[in-house]
């Protein structure tokens, strides 16, 4: 249409200029003016057509010989060629300016829309994913027919709007092939969603204009919202777990304290019964059994409270210089009384002094021995060795049977984790190793699982406790 208008204008200009007997140069400037106006309003091709038409008119009406397309003077040829080149350049430049202006307007408009969408997305609740409602801002602001999102983490496909074409199928395919694309015939654009280089889903738009400009930013907005909902869900789960844990250990603590008064009553009564001189040996033995079992229950209760407090990180270690082998030897003796001497203690170094909390070391070693006795072959030997290892004392507990599989190695120190073998063969809370490691770290050491103890095919745990600096260099320590 613009080329027709331009052609008509060129004709009128020719008529007027010819009647006015304008020279070639004057007419050329008039045509150039017309070309500028044409380029500002018309397309590049129509402007080029008008340029060529203007050259024809100039040649025919204003260059000797008149009413002929022949040119007699080489100067006129040069003038016409110059006019043609100038006209085409002007046309091209003006068209470029127009395209850039238009593109800038579109970008501005798209930015405004994206800003609108972002604002609406921020106003959504962080857990709003139900039924694809969170995609509505995309659809409304960008006037889409439909928008579809596949969230791989949840294996959910969300859709907003009425999809006429295979939008859902194409979105799913984009995720599977790991590649987005445009289907111009159906007006569908798909984009892959990536977080940290990992593909986490795909988004598909039906009826999206300026796909090149908008599809990417819209996908980024969708990613941001999805990440927000995932983080919120994760944080909510973590908070719920932490709260449940807190309640659980508080209840455990309270219950254990509640046990202490009745246990004291039983112990006092049993202890007093034992003191009665007229008791028969059988009755005395029974009173002793009641007392020792109630005392054992008391120790278990205390241990339970301490474990619960360790979990809540309420235990402050009382650090003092202790001979770890004497602490351990007492604990081993206690265990050997109830396990028919299964545990042997090997001391491989002279000085075994460490700076630690005596009770906590006892508790950690008890947990390791419990673990070794429960999960090893029944009746097999358990070896506990104490050796110097660099600037630490290493306490190793070796047992045989039920080795820990490689894929369990990273999990066994997790809270409530129970080994695959142990789940069916032994009672346990899944807290022993967790608590033992917590103690080791609180005392400035560590607890690790070492490689399996070769021939015996069992587990080897190594508890390290730091040797105080003064002991390392034989300078008296100040503790």
């Amino acid at each position: 249409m613009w080329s027709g208008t331009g052609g008509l204008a060129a004709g009128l200009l020719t008529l007027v200029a010819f009647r006015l007997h304008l020279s070639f140069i004057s007419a050329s400037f008039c045509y150039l003016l017309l070309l500028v106006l044409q380029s500002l309003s018309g397309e590049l091709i129509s402007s080029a057509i008008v340029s060529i038409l203007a050259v024809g008119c100039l040649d025919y009406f204003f260059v000797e010989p008149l009413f002929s397309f022949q040119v007699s003077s080489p100067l006129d040829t040069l003038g016409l060629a110059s006019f043609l080149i100038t006209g085409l350049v002007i046309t091209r430049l003006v068209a470029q300016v127009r395209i850039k202006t238009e593109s800038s307007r579109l970008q501005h408009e798209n930015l405004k829309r994206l800003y609108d969408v972002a604002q609406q997305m921020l106003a959504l609740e962080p857990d709003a994913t139900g039924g694809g409602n969170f995609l509505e801002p995309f659809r409304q602001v960008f006037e889409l027919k439909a928008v579809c999102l596949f969230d791989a983490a949840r294996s959910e496909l969300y859709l907003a709007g009425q999809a006429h074409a295979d939008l859902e199928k194409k979105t799913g395919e984009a995720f599977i092939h790991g590649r987005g694309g445009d289907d111009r015939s159906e007006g569908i654009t798909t984009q892959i969603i990536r977080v940290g280089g990992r593909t986490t889903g795909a988004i598909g738009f039906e009826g999206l204009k300026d796909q090149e400009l908008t599809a990417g930013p819209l996908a980024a907005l969708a990613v941001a919202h999805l990440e927000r909902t995932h983080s919120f869900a994760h944080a909510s789960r973590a908070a719920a777990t932490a709260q449940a844990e807190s309640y659980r250990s508080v209840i455990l603590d309270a219950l254990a304290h509640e046990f202490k008064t009745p246990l004291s009553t039983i112990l006092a009564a049993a202890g007093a019964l034992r003191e009665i001189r007229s008791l028969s040996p059988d009755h005395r033995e029974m009173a002793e059994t009641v007392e020792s079992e109630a005392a054992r229950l008391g120790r278990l209760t205390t241990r339970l409270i301490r474990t619960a407090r360790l979990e809540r990180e309420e235990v402050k270690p009382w650090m003092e210089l202790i001979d770890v082998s004497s602490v351990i030897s007492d604990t081993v003796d206690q265990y050997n009384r109830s396990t028919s001497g299964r545990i042997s203690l090997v001391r491989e170094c002279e000085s075994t002094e460490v700076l630690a909390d005596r009770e906590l070391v006892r508790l950690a070693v008890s947990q390791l021995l419990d673990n070794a006795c429960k999960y090893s072959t029944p009746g097999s030997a358990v070896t506990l060795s104490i050796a110097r290892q660099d600037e630490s004392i290493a306490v190793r507990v070796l047992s045989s049977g039920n080795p820990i599989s490689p894929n369990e190695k990273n999990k066994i120190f997790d809270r409530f984790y129970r080994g695959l073998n142990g789940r069916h063969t032994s009672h346990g809370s899944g807290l022993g190793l967790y608590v033992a490691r917590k103690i080791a770290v609180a005392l400035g050491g560590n607890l690790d699982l070492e490689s399996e103890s070769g021939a015996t095919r069992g587990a080897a745990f190594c508890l390290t406790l730091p040797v105080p600096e003064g002991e390392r260099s034989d300078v008296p320590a100040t503790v």
Partner: protein
Amino acid sequence: MTSPQPFSVLVVDDEPSLRKTIRASLSASGYCVAEAGTGGEAVGVFRGRPFDLVLLDVNMPGMSGVEACRQIRALAPRTGIIMVTVRDAEEDKVRALEAGADDYVTKPFRFRELIARLGAVLRRTRMDIDASGVVQVGALKMDLERRVLWKGDEEIRLSPKEFDLLSFMMKNQGVPLTHLKLLQAVWGSDYGSELEYLRTYVRMLRKKIEDDPARPDYILTEPWVGYRFGNPSDPDQAARPSEQE
């Protein structure tokens, strides 16, 4: 010759069954026992008549055990007061000792342990340094006048501060001594938070007087509370509670 007067004990606990059991058990062991169910009642009973010993629960409704301890101590400076606490409540123990208690037992406790504690406190409240100014605990003998210490036949050299600390501990044998009490008794009333001083001197003293400093028999640690001077030749020391399983 008349038989000696039995020692009187006031048992204060809000739990009637525990009170009753302890009363029966202590009566069977030769003590003369009275009961109180609250801290306020205990102070009231005490105003009516003195007791040699008070066994006082820390956690009671109404007046707390610590407050009752403070009031009873004000009434009777020489009465032995033993608090009943729960483990892992070190703050309660320190508060009770600072309020004037002589010792504590931790629930659940064995009857033997209770008897041992009562005996230790009775000995302490009735202990007078003999006229020669010599204190003897186990193999250790200390001449307070001449400031000399022997372990068996061997004389052990101590610095003046070591001597002051050890003599204070030996004079208060068998009962827990808080960090604050030790620091103020040896270094002066301006001291109280300098735990490092105490730890350094205890470490040096253990090297000098203990057979095995890492497994002490005399200077025993009461975690978070302070120290207790033990007597290895005292059979009651074996009744100390054990956390071993």
